[in-house]
């Protein structure tokens, strides 16, 4: 879920979660759906900054993102100056990259899909992978916890056997009052924490309430951190599928 959330931060498709509520409607599933309802939308436009922190340097990237549904996303880099104008187009599971400096559109090769996107702690694969929190996982409600003074539901997600997911399990902290995901932990097959994602700075955007800052903390690299903040976001904008084309990828400028 949280990766979807991040993915939504980039390609800002605040997608429609599976409308088929086939799963038994447990309390845990209901909480998750509530949380997803907060961020879901059919289309959106947002401006973001991504800060990559490393022990010896920090890098800031600003971008603008359009999204439509689950499948379409377009992100334009607006800063730093050297990368300005670089754009990414996502259609389904494929990603293209427009590089104005060499006047080329490059389809992201598989080897680069598993590298950190723009040098961050999230791989391109993480950002576009589509797994369904509701359908691919079994949900268990754990006792409530208080996280930084916010009372949270704690939900443990264990993948269903046939689901194509990479995590051994996911643990989520969702606030009781406003259903915001304040924290998620991603575990590998050995049940060790691989990534922690911390959400903060809740903000009212139209009818919705969102967390506008997210920190990704990879456990195996202390001192490494990726922070994503969004400045502005607008939901349910009028945008068509044709917008997400290779032609438009070349044309789009701010």
């Amino acid at each position, binding site marked *: 879920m949280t990766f979807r959330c991040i993915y939504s931060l980039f390609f800002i498709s605040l997608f429609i979660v599976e409308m088929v509520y086939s799963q038994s409607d447990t309390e845990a599933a209901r909480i998750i759906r509530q949380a997803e309802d907060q961020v879901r939308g059919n289309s959106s436009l947002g401006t973001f900054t991504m800060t*990559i922190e*490393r022990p010896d*340097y920090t*890098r800031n990237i600003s971008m603008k993102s359009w999204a439509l549904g689950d499948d379409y996303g377009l992100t334009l880099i607006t800063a730093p100056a*050297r*990368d300005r104008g*670089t754009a990414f187009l996502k259609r389904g599971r494929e990603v293209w*990259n427009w*590089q104005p*400096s*060499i*006047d*080329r559109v*490059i389809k992201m*090769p598989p*080897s*680069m899909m598993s*590298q*950190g996107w*723009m*040098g*961050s702690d999230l791989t391109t694969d993480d950002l576009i992978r589509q797994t369904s929190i509701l359908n691919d996982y079994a949900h268990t409600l754990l006792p409530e916890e208080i996280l930084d003074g916010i009372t949270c539901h704690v939900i443990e997600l264990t993948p269903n056997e046939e689901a194509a997911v990479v995590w051994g399990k996911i643990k989520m902290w969702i606030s009781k009052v406003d259903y915001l995901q304040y924290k998620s932990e991603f575990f590998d097959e050995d049940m060790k924490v691989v990534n922690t994602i911390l959400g903060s700075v809740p903000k009212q955007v139209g009818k919705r309430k969102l967390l506008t800052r997210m920190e990704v903390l990879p456990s195996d690299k202390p001192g490494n951190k990726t922070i994503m903040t969004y400045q502005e976001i607008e939901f349910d904008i009028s945008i068509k599928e044709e917008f997400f084309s290779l032609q438009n990828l070349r044309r789009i400028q701010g």
Partner: protein
Amino acid sequence: MRMIFHMAFRNIWRNRRRTFITAASIMFAGMLTISMTSIQTGMWENMLQNVVDQSTGHVQIQSPGFFDEPTLDQSFQISQQSLDQVLDLKKVDKINPRLESFILTAYEDRTRPAIVFGVHPEKEESMTSLSNRLIAGKFFTADDQDGILVSSGLVDRLGLSLGDSLVFFGQGYRGSMAVGMWPVQGIITLPLRELNNQTIYMPIHLAWDLFQAYDQYTSVMVRSTNNRDLSSLHSDIKNIVTQEGLHAYTWESLMPELLEAKQIDEASTLITMYILYLVVAFGIFGTLLMMLNERTYEMGVLISIGMKRTQLMLLMWLEFLIMALIGLLTGMVIALIIVVYLHYFPVPLGDDMQDVFEQFGMIAQLTATLNPFIFIRETFTVSIIVSILSLYPIWKIYRLNPVQAIRA
């Protein structure tokens, strides 16, 4: 005494075929041991020289983390002052700073991974003689704004030709995007297939621009004026670069697996050599035995007519020594011819062998070293074998019963 010398010479030329066979067996012994050892040592020397010249230098300066994690983020800046200090060291011949990284290259619809070496053209040229590898196009100079050299294997894989623009796409320094496009200015061919399939050289300022790693290097190769006493050179360089938080490595510590392979190969060669010594020793012994048997009657007669046994012993020993000398000298001459030829005209071993050699980063060619020490050592070994064998006729004469010998 003079008479014995005289007799020895006469005996030698009396039966030329016999002399020839004995001398030939010694000749083969000398020739085989000398050329085999020279070839074995020569091939390793050749390869290590290659490694030192082409990839590591005698000593290499790196950032401390690069050895465990050879990525661009482990590159470093080094002050001109430190570089000058290193160059001023008495034993330092040349230095060659490089920036090296992996990247994807694309031409039309093909994409291949490549290793990019950002180099100062004149420094690279003086250390690795890169321009000798050029097979088409033009070599680059420091002033070239956009000329890259692509290895022929990569050119084939991408379907490139001279003047085509090659697209670079990958990750640069500290998470930046590495994107660039430059025309192919020259095509080089590298002896190691693995490298030939993926190597690109470009002037350092292009590499800096591509990876956004301005003034950064991943390594500085330092070449010494000679191969000896690298440890003092290593510690001198280390003292200079430690002030900048950098490390210096000797080529041995950068290539431990190569050194191990060399030791294993040397150990197995040693066993082969001992077997070879044994074989040649028995070969010589065989001809010696034959000769003595042929001449038992003659020796019996000589003792019967009053020749002292000591005189006869001296005679036989001298004969054998003269034959050994002839054999050894011709053996050395032939070995010298073989070794010199292989040294100056190495013989390629073909593609199948190349696959095997590639694992060790070696070029599959037969070559030899011109190390006089090997000549002396192997000649000495064969001389010892011959000296031990020459005791046999003495013992044989000591035990000789003239009556039986004549009747035999």
